[in-house]
């Protein structure tokens, strides 16, 4: 019943919004380059009212009386402008484009950023990193690599484009970290559950992203799932002006990345957009020290290129809708289709090459989005209804055995390269999602935020090949999960808003239904869980330069469907006795900003218990997830940005995180307490990033731009197994990585085109994120980005 209520509320708001038509002044504030100015202040003297432009530079003053109105438009770094606007009975609504003039060409970017949406988020009470993706649209960087540049974030990848990846935020990782696209859980939209985060992120290239918000510790209620200690929201681009933009890049290993973005806005507010991308890579980089087996069964080390790791993905997305209406700031109906082809080259420690196993995915996303500030007095609303279908195909039906040269060296008599049964598995998952986000601005210092997400997911499949093996097609049995996540947050400013408090409670509920095989028969298993979480955070703006933050969160992550009910395709048995993972998260730190530099440092503490761990056993016996280990994480992350002159900038960050086992023997699966206090194995504990960027303007033409950058990433070596076990000198180690990248880009005076040349891993170092799994060596990238049209 409560699932349906969300949809009723959603449509009620649509109805209410249609009823409110008043005298209105709306518009957009842009600079002389046509770029929207987010955070510009508009003051209307007659009604003594003021508003601030949103991220797209848009504003609206409604419920105005007829007659002349005087507007004062101001924005830091720009000359203040006065506008007189007459509202007449026959034309009660006026839409105005206001162009502000920059005070100085030398105006530094730090000042501009001070009022950007990204900075507003950064100035919120939660510990958050914001990566503005726009600066990387000219580069060949992947979404995974871009995420890894944030302090406190570690992305462990298993190879090249589209390969598997695991994201960790301040020591928590895997399912404990949740990903979102525009506030919608990413696993509703992309095949996260089926293929993991790596291939899913490859279906969301950087050129489609406006910014990434990385929440560490207390996760705001607007992120509506049960994240344990971190969430990443990827905000896609939502321009409010006409443009056509395209980019194409070619890189080593026959890698192509192309994208196109276009939008048209009519005077009526009608808008239509088209977005697409195509990414492909052979991923055929050279591997060193891999084994081929001679006729006597002995390994011989060779160097060979990957031969079965191709990745292809494309997506086309279209939307139509209206913007800047009295009843809607934005209402968009969108449709997208995406397709993925991903060959699987090897097993998880890269010891066994595969030659034919692969994944294919098709996704269909349909969504209706609605945004309105002041829907009713002081109430902002953001609504989403989506229907998504994800079809995944896993093919593992060959009897051939391959070596690292790509040669067939034998044949099995049964079984696939990965599974004992062989598979031609097709899974079809349907998901309906609704989201309501309401913000009630009681007064300038007090906001009440409600966020509710409900989803209905159902999946079934077919596998005629596995059916031959098992005697029955068990994949036909459906699995489903219905979730409701609700959260309420109260933000309140004190002492002239120098101190801001944010209190939140969250409630999670789900009902899951699956099946398990017993005595060769499928039996339905069902489970319901309800849990809660709460957080309290503060920010203290001590002066114009220094902002301090403190947050605490009691976070809960419910066991997901696979963990609780098992999954036949993953050879996992049900464990209905699983408890939720729980964590106490504390973050404390601050940011100091000056005109030419800024520095921030945050300490973090996590106490995580009942961690859900897969206790793997060899198939066909099914593995189970169990609650094991309690972990304490203490760490510090810091970042410094320096822009001593307009032509040079430096960013440096580092993270130290100490993950220690706090389990007594009962929860460790061992018979004594020797692992109590031991550092967790196979987890990076010291890493950092750096980048120096030099920008030369007016080189060949006025206002053109030449940029040169050097970036680096460092990860200290760490043990594969527990540090306290065995002889130190010959323990297995994931070695230290210190990789360097160089790039140069030229942009013409009107930002019409940018040509970029990059080289990554310039010293061709062997790099590993996971034990034994080699990442690419030196690679070259060429990219052309062009704005074919921009209003």
């Amino acid at each position, binding site marked *: 019943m409560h699932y349906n209520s969300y949809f009723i509320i959603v449509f009620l708001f649509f109805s209410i919004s249609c009823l409110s038509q008043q005298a209105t002044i709306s518009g957009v504030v842009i600079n002389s380059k046509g770029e929207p100015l987010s955070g510009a202040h508009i003051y209307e003297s007659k009604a003594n009212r003021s508003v601030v432009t949103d991220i797209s530079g848009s504003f609206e003053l409604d419920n105005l009386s007829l007659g002349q109105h005087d507007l004062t438009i101001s924005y830091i770094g720009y000359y203040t402008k006065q506008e007189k606007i007459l509202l007449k009975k026959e034309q009660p609504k006026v839409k105005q484009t206001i162009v502000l003039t920059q005070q100085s060409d030398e105006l530094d970017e730090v000042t501009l950023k001070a009022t950007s949406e990204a900075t507003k988020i950064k100035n919120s009470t939660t510990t958050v990193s914001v990566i503005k993706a726009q600066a990387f649209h000219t580069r060949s960087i992947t979404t995974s690599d871009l995420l890894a540049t944030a302090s406190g974030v570690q992305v462990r990848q298993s190879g090249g484009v589209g390969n598997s990846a695991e994201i960790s935020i301040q020591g928590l990782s895997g399912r404990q970290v949740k990903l979102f696209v525009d506030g919608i859980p990413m696993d509703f939209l992309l095949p996260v559950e089926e293929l993991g985060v790596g291939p899913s992120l490859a279906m969301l290239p950087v050129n489609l992203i406006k910014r990434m918000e990385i929440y560490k510790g207390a996760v705001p209620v607007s992120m509506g799932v049960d994240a344990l200690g971190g969430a990443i929201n990827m905000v896609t681009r939502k321009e409010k002006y006409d443009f056509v933009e395209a980019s194409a890049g070619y890189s080593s290993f026959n890698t192509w990345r192309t994208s196109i973005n276009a939008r048209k806005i009519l005077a009526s507010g009608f808008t239509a957009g088209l977005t697409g991308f195509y990414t492909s890579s052979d991923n055929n980089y050279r591997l060193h020290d891999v084994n081929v*087996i001679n006729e*006597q*069964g*002995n*390994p011989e080390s060779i160097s060979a290129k990957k031969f079965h790791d191709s990745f292809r993905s494309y997506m086309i997305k279209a939307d139509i809708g209206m913007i800047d209406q009295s009843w809607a700031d934005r209402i968009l109906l969108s449709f997208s289709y995406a397709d993925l082809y991903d060959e699987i080259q090897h097993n998880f420690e890269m*010891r*066994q090459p595969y030659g034919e196993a692969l994944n294919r995915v098709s996704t269909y996303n349909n969504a209706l989005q609605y945004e309105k500030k002041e829907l009713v007095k002081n109430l902002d609303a953001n609504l989403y209804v989506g229907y998504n279908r994800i079809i995944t195909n896993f093919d593992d039906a060959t009897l051939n055995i391959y070596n690292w040269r790509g040669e067939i*060296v*034998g044949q*099995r*008599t*049964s*079984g696939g*390269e990965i599974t*004992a049964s062989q598979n031609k598995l097709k899974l079809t998952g349907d998901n309906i999602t609704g989201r309501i986000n309401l913000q009630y601005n009681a007064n300038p210092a007090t906001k009440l935020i409600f966020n509710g997400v409900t989803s209905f997911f159902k999946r079934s499949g077919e596998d005629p090949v596995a059916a031959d093996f098992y005697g029955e097609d068990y994949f036909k049995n459906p699995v489903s999960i219905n979730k409701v996540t609700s959260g309420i947050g109260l933000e309140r400013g004190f002492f002239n808003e120098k101190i801001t408090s944010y209190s939140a409670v969250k409630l999670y509920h789900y009902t899951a239904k699956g099946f398990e095989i017993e*005595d*060769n028969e499928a039996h339905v298993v069902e489970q319901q869980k309800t849990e809660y979480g709460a957080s309290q955070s503060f920010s203290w703006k001590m002066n114009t330069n220094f902002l301090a933050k403190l947050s605490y969160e009691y976070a809960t992550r419910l066991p997901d469907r696979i963990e609780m009910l098992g999954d036949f395709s993953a050879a996992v048995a049900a464990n209905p006795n699983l408890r939720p993972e729980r964590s106490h998260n504390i973050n404390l730190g601050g940011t*100091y900003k000056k005109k030419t*530099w800024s*520095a921030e440092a945050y300490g973090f503490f996590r106490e995580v218990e009942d961690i859900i*761990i*897969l206790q*793997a056993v*060899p198939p066909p016996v099914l593995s*189970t997830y*169990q609650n*094991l*280990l309690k972990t304490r994480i203490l760490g510090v992350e*810091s970042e*410094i940005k*320096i822009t001593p002159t307009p032509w040079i900038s*430096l960013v*440096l960050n*580092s993270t130290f995180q100490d993950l220690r*086992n706090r389990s007594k*023997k*009962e929860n*460790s*699966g*061992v*018979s*004594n307490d*020797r*692992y109590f206090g*031991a550092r967790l*194995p196979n987890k990076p504990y010291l890493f*950092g990033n*750096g980048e120096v960027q030099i920008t030369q303007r007016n080189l060949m033409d006025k206002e053109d731009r030449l940029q040169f950058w050097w970036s680096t990433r*460092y990860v200290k070596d760490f043990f*594969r*197994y*527990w540090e306290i*076990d*065995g*002889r130190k*000198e*010959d*323990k297995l180690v994931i070695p*230290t990585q*210190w990789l360097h990248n160089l790039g140069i880009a030229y942009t013409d005076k009107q930002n019409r085109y940018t040509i970029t040349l990059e080289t990554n891993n310039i010293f061709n170092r062997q790099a590993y994120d996971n034990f034994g799994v080699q990442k690419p060596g030196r690679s070259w990238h060429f990219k052309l980005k062009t704005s074919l049209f921009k209003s």
Partner: protein
Amino acid sequence: MNKLKTTTYIYILGLLVAFNMLSCGSDDDATTSVEEPVVKINHGVAVVSGAGDVKTTFLQGLTNLNTTSIDNKNSTEVGQFSSVYSDGKAMFTAGFGSPATMKKFVFDKEGKAVLEQEIIIPGSNSFSSVEILNETTGYATVGGGISKVIQFDPSTMRITGEIDIKDAGDGIFYSDMIIKDTNLFVALNDFGGSGTAKVAVVDLKTNTLSKIITDDRTATLFNTLTSEIMTVDAQGDIYIQASGLFSDKPSGVLRIKNGQTDFDTTYFFDLGAAFGKTCFGLYHFGEGATFTIVSENDDNFFGTDGANPVFRYQKIDLAGTKKVGDLETSLPNTFAASRTSFMKKTSDDEVLFPISGTEEDALYSYKISSGSVTKKMVSTSGYITGIITLKQ
């Protein structure tokens, strides 16, 4: 402002220096060339160490087994869950994980287990059974659809031949092997699919599969690496233990009479009737010294529930087809019988076996002559999964 700038630059410098130090540091000091005394190793022990889901096998050599406690601080990390074997000169490991990898370790003069050579079977999941006949002849099977018995030379770690057993069927796991006369008997595990117990008989004179023998009184010859389900008694009769898992058949013991290559239809030990539960493993060390391991909870037969070890060593009477009782009533239950249990005869009168418990991991001694059981040694670093003895 200047102070802050200075602080900033010091911060950057500090970070860079720290990175430099970390990236360049920790090379071992040059070792001195002092001649160290040779450590005589007579036994090898495998211990699985780790917590949570990060566990692996560690190997160490011991001069003698008369120690009350062992740890793993001077052990060699294998990087796989492995069982151990020996030809009397070296320690061999067969690990879980693709591709099937058998490693030969020798003990250096400091007593460390050092990897000497590997045999890898491409495309396979893991070794499923290993039988080392002598220093130059061994047999092994692998899981993952490779329907072969691999013949290898343990001294050189070279594959010397292959026996095709494809006709034994598809999707079969080869659970255990035993050599008797000129035949190799391979236990076939079809995970209950046929509802029978199946054994492949291989003629070692011709290296060909002679036949498959089946018996429907029990099913599923389930076994993995460290434990054994096939044994030969003093009369030369082969006994084979079946779990009955994944079928509606009881656990049981079947017999192949000396000189025969078929199941003895006059013999069946119904372990299900005797114990009312599932049994794993069969160990025979002479009359009155035969054992199996009983699961007290079939839902937990892999013993990974952190709270309740469920397996007990039980003495059985093979000839009389009846249970005798607990190996020792005071013994605690043990975890994970099918993966980690073993019984190893280390002298004429002593059999060692492990108990992996919630309170302690230990190796116990069973005296064949008296039937007494004593704790031999405690492992403070994990549970013991194998022990080998080198020839003097």
